[in-house]
C-alpha cells in the first residue's frame, strides 16, 4: 500500500456513515451535493452491506490518493483555514495532516486501511460514528433551508410553486423501520457516536423513541449522543432521557443575537430563542454536556455573527460552523459586494484582535476540547475573515436572491427591509 495523499485522504469511510431523511444512505455527513455523492438503492435496513461493500470504491480512491469530487466542501474549508470534516475525522483515528506519515502508520485503523487496500476497498468493520437525519419535521422555515429539512418550508414551497412535489416520506415515519434500525444498532460492534438531525429533532417522534429504546438496551452507558436543535422547543422527557447517556453533545442552531434572526430563521423570535438557549446552557453545564453554537452564516447574518462569538467567548460555550453555506447559493455571504465583505471582515478582525492576547497560534482540530473553547472561537471567526476577504465574487446572484425573497415574503407578509435596511439599495437594484 503506498502512502495515501495527505491532502485528500479521509478515514471517514472506515467508521462513519449517514442516513438521509428519506432513509437513503450516504458515506459522509459533510457532503452537501447529494446528487454528486454515491447513490444507493439500499436503505437503513441494510446499511452494513452499503458500508462494507458499496462504499468500497470510495475507500479505494482515498487509499490511491484520488480526489473524490463530493469532498469539495472539505477542500474548500481547508483552503480558507477552516477546520474541515476531513480533519476532524482524521483526528478521531489519530491522524494529523501536519505529521501525516507517522500518525497514519500509528493509527489504530492502520491495519484496516491496509486490509482494504488488499481487498478492493472492502472492509469488515461496522460504522461507529453515525449521522442520522430523522426527517424533515420542523416548526421553523429558515430562509436558507430546504424542503428536505423542513416540513413547514416544504408546504410553503409547494404552495408557492417552488417545488413540484413534496419530499419523500421520512424514513422514521415507518415505526417498524425505526425498530429494525434500533435492533441493528444494538448489534453494532464498537458503536461510539450517534448524531441526530432533523428537521427539528425535538419535535420528531423517532428521536425520543430511539433515545428511549437505546436506554432500554443499555447502550446509553457506552455511546455518545449528539443532536442539533433550533432553540424554539423544549421537551422535559427528552432532557431526562439525555441525562442517562454517557456523553451528550448539544448543538444550538443560531447565527446571531439580532432581530435579523426573526427574518432568517422565520418564524422564531430571537428573545424566545435566547431564553431557550440559556435553559439548555444551564442544564448542559449541570450535566457536563458539551454545548456548542452551530452557526450557518448567510449574507444577512454574517455581519452579526460577532454577537454569537462574543457571548460564546464570555460564557465559554463552543462555536462550530460545520460548513460554509453551500445551498441555496444566493444566500452565501460571498454574494455581498466586495466592499461590504471587506467592511464586515475588518470589524470581525477588530473583534478578534481585541482578544488577541489569548489567541494561541496552535491550530485546534478537536473542536470539543473544553480547554480550548476560546481559542477555537477565535480560530473559527478568523476563517470567516479569510473567506470574506478571499472567497470568490458571487455578487451576480442578487437577482436570484431577490426573486426568492419576494416569493417567500408574499407568503409570510414580511419584508427584508424591516430587518436589513442597510441593504435596501442593493436589493432595489436587483429588482426588489
Amino acid at each position, binding site marked *: *500500500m*503506498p*502512502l495515501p495523499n495527505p491532502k485528500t485522504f479521509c478515514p471517514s469511510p*472506515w*467508521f462513519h456513515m449517514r442516513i438521509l431523511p428519506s432513509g437513503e444512505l450516504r458515506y459522509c455527513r459533510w457532503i452537501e451535493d447529494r446528487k454528486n455523492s454515491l447513490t444507493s438503492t439500499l436503505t437503513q435496513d441494510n446499511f452494513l452491506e452499503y458500508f462494507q461493500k458499496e462504499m468500497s470504491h470510495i475507500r479505494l480512491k482515498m487509499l490511491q490518493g484520488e480526489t473524490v469530487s463530493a469532498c469539495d466542501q472539505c477542500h474548500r474549508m481547508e483552503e480558507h483555514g477552516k477546520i474541515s470534516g476531513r480533519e476532524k475525522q482524521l*483526528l*478521531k*483515528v*489519530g491522524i494529523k495532516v501536519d*505529521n501525516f*506519515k*507517522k*500518525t497514519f*502508520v*500509528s493509527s*489504530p*485503523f*492502520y*491495519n*484496516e486501511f491496509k486490509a482494504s487496500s488488499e481487498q478492493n476497498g472492502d472492509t469488515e*468493520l461496522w460504522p*461507529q*460514528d453515525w449521522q442520522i437525519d430523522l426527517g424533515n419535521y420542523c416548526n421553523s422555515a429558515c430562509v436558507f433551508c430546504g424542503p428536505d429539512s423542513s416540513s413547514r418550508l416544504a408546504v410553503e414551497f409547494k404552495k408557492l410553486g417552488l417545488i413540484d412535489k413534496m419530499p419523500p416520506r421520512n424514513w422514521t415515519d415507518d415505526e417498524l423501520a425505526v425498530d429494525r434500525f434500533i435492533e441493528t444498532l444494538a448489534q453494532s460492534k*464498537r458503536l*461510539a*457516536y450517534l448524531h441526530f438531525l432533523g428537521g427539528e429533532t425535538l419535535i420528531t417522534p423517532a428521536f425520543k423513541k430511539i433515545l428511549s429504546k437505546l436506554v432500554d438496551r443499555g447502550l446509553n452507558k457506552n455511546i455518545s449522543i449528539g443532536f442539533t436543535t433550533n432553540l424554539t422547543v423544549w421537551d422535559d422527557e427528552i432532557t431526562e432521557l439525555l441525562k442517562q447517556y454517557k456523553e451528550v453533545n448539544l448543538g444550538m442552531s443560531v447565527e446571531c443575537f439580532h432581530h435579523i434572526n426573526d427574518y432568517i430563521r422565520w418564524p422564531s423570535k430571537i428573545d424566545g430563542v435566547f431564553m431557550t438557549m440559556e435553559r439548555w446552557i444551564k442544564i448542559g453545564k449541570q450535566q457536563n454536556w458539551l454545548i456548542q453554537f452551530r452557526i450557518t452564516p448567510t449574507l444577512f447574518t454574517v455581519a452579526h455573527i460577532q454577537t454569537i462569538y462574543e457571548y460564546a467567548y464570555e460564557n465559554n460555550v463552543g462555536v462550530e460552523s460545520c460548513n460554509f453555506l453551500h445551498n441555496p447559493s444566493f444566500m452565501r455571504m460571498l454574494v455581498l459586494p466586495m466592499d461590504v465583505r471587506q467592511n464586515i471582515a475588518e470589524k470581525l478582525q477588530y473583534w478578534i484582535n481585541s482578544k488577541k492576547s489569548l489567541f494561541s497560534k496552535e491550530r485546534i*482540530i*478537536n473542536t*470539543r*476540547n473544553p*480547554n*480550548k473553547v476560546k481559542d477555537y472561537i477565535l480560530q473559527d471567526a478568523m476563517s470567516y475573515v479569510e473567506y470574506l476577504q478571499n472567497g470568490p465574487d458571487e455578487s451576480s446572484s442578487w437577482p436570484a436572491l431577490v426573486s426568492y425573497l419576494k416569493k417567500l415574503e408574499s407568503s409570510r407578509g414580511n419584508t427584508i427591509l424591516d430587518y436589513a435596511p442597510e441593504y435596501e439599495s442593493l436589493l432595489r437594484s436587483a429588482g426588489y
Partner: protein
Amino acid sequence: MHQNMNHFYDQQDIEISLALKPCESKIKPIIVVRINNHVLFEGVLEDARTMSHRVDLMSNISISIGLMNKNYHNDPDSGVIIDSLEIDQFELIPSWTQLFSYINDHANNSPTNHLGYNGTWSLNIIEPFYRWQHKITGQGWLLEP
C-alpha cells in the same frame, strides 16, 4: 515496486532526546539513564550533556533516570536536573513533569524535573507514542476498529 525498495512504513522511528545537567554542588551525581533497557549513560554526571536514542515508531517507550549513592549528610545539594526531554520534537520536559513518576527514598513524589533524592524518575508509554500523545494532549476520541 522494486523488491528491495522499502515501504514507507518499514523504516520509521522516533527520536528521544534528553538534556541533563548536574546541580550546583561539589559532588557530582551518579546516575543511570535508560531508554527501553538501553543504557544511554551510566556514571558520574560531571557536566551538562545531551543524549538521544531512536526507537521504533510503534514500540512502547520506557524512559528512566536513576540517581544513586547520594549521601544526604555530606552532599545535601547534589542531584540532577532534566532541562529538556523531547520525543520527536514534542516537548515533555519542562511542560509535562506531572506525567513522570519519581519513586525515591524520601517518598517525595511531587512532579519535578529536579532529582535530589536517590531513586528513579521514569515514564512508561505502553502504546505507540502518537496514540499516547493524542490522549494526553486532549485531542478527543481515538476510535478503535
